[in-house]
């Protein structure tokens, strides 16, 4: 070990490429994590088939009439008296009504001039109350 001058220089003259794989994986993982797929959200509904019309007893219908102001008139079956409420209140109303009558159908009738968002609010309330039988109509 006396001949120090003879020893080869240990510093490599190449660009270090061993960390390249790490960088590539880092990029890969970064893009995997940050990529968000635009998964749409919404309120699903099944439209009736063409010409499909079911006869339903008036006792099993709850009419929800959406006025242009966003106020909802609730009328049950053949009863003449209506109850006015805001869309948020429908959820608890529906929960109570469905426990009394499991065959209840929500007939959502929207005024032609009412904004779409009010219908969505009502539909949202019905979905929140896990209503399954919903019919969307226009107020005539």
């Amino acid at each position, binding site marked *: 070990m006396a001949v120090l001058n003879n020893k080869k220089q240990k510093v490599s003259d190449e660009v270090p490429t061993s960390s390249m794989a790490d960088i*590539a*994986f880092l990029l*890969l993982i970064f893009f995997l994590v940050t990529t968000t797929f*635009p998964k749409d*959200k*919404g*309120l699903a509904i099944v*439209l009736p088939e063409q010409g499909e019309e079911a006869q339903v007893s008036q006792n099993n219908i709850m009419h929800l009439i959406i006025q242009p102001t966003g106020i909802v008139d609730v009328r049950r079956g053949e009863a003449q008296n209506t109850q006015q409420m805001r869309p948020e209140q429908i959820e608890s109303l529906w929960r109570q009504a469905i426990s009394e009558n499991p065959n209840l159908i929500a007939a959502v009738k929207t005024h032609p*001039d009412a904004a779409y968002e009010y219908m969505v609010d009502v539909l949202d309330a019905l979905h929140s109350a896990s209503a399954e039988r919903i019919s969307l109509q226009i107020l005539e």
Partner: protein
Amino acid sequence: MSMKGGGFDRKSKASSEVPSSSLADIAFLLLIFFMVTTVFQADRDRPIEWPEAEAAEKIDEKQKNILNIWLERSGTVFMNDQPFGMPDVSSFVAPLYAASDRALVISIRSDRQTPYIYVDQLQKELVEAGVVRVVFATQLEQSMQRERR
């Protein structure tokens, strides 16, 4: 180097390390694979004010089986970046629906201020086209927001 052991302790020239020079290539290959296979939605978003809903659920269908129908405040319908008149909707949707083996889901993306008459007309067009599964696309409403109202 001593030759005491008969040359057996001579260092082997084969590397004892796992060859990692191709690792970068594999990583890049994966990166490019995922970049290529990622499918983004085909149509451009229309400028609408989204309605909000709390009970909104994810649409349980493949992206390619979802058709976005944009409905603007004025009643103009947009599908695949093209404007449509209301009576033309069913004739455009019906062949798409048939081509998808009746798996097509319509995502109605309407402005929150759209008068309901247009939404109703659109629904009637879809019923005419035979479509059954429809989703009213909304943005998720935060429950905090709802409590404040």
